[in-house]
């Protein structure tokens, strides 16, 4: 039985239509609460429920810059070490998410006590800062901020950078 014949068979398409149709209906009725919240504009930044991650807040460049200037927050760079070494926000500590995921939980010891922890990654579509924030929240860290503009927005605005080979 060739692919051509399968595709020419009306029954194939009826079956596919039924699978998609039933899936759509079940998908819609199984999570009405989430769909309502999605339609109301939630989950644009991240797919986390505020009640599950109360410590995670998204901040914009002016807030990140102010916190940096006032030195009231510790900055965490969630990108890999190579990217960090090429350049990072001055004073930021390197906690690469990928190293953490491969078992280097000792990296968490680098994070000092601070009123706020601001996490960033490359910017744009990068998800490392968010995933690191989820990780930190589950380990009991508090007052987590995600600077979603990240490294790209920081450098595009001509803000100070630091390059060194130390971690």
């Amino acid at each position, binding site marked *: 039985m060739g692919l051509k014949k399968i595709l020419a068979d009306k*029954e194939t398409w009826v079956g596919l239509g039924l699978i998609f149709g039933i899936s759509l209906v079940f998908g819609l009725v199984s999570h009405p609460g989430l769909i309502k919240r999605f339609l109301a504009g939630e989950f644009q930044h991240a797919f986390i429920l505020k009640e599950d991650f109360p410590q995670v807040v998204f901040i914009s460049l002016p807030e990140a810059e102010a916190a940096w200037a006032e030195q009231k927050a510790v900055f965490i760079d969630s990108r890999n070490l190579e990217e960090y070494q090429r350049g990072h926000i001055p004073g930021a500590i390197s906690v690469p998410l990928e190293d953490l995921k491969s078992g280097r939980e000792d990296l968490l010891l680098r994070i000092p006590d601070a009123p706020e922890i601001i996490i960033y990654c490359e910017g744009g579509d990068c998800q490392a800062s968010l995933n690191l924030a989820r990780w930190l929240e589950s380990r009991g860290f508090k007052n987590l901020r995600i600077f979603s503009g990240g490294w790209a927005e920081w450098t595009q605005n001509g803000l100070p950078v630091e390059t060194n080979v130390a971690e």
Partner: protein
Amino acid sequence: MLQNKNVLLIFRLIVGGVFIWAGVSKIADPLSFAQDVRNYQLVGPALSFLTAIFLPWVELIAGLWLVVGIYPKSSALLISSLLLFFIVLVLITMIRGLDVDCGCFGTFSRQADWRLIAEDSLWLALSLALLFSPANDFCLLRKKSSKA
């Protein structure tokens, strides 16, 4: 193509079972899966969310129908297409140098890497054998002219 109906039945149980498990493990927590989809950095938040609502059910129903034999050609075609898509997706992700969880089986997820491509290729081979084999015994619903 393969004619042995017992072998084909075992293939159906394996491939269908994998897809049932893939669907069930994700249905309970669509937000986690939506984040997994988003981590691939191919689609925006809206499409990631809709995928997370819709795709696990497609996997579950296609897997279930393959096992019990309801529109077996449709489910084999769909599952083969999905597997092909997953393989290409993981390849692209590796070429882009992204380190992401595959999002395959909910909390039992793991890294999207070569091993995953190998595993998906194995399921794809079984699924294609089912798609192109004329035999469809032990089916709840099947065409009468199944030998055609």
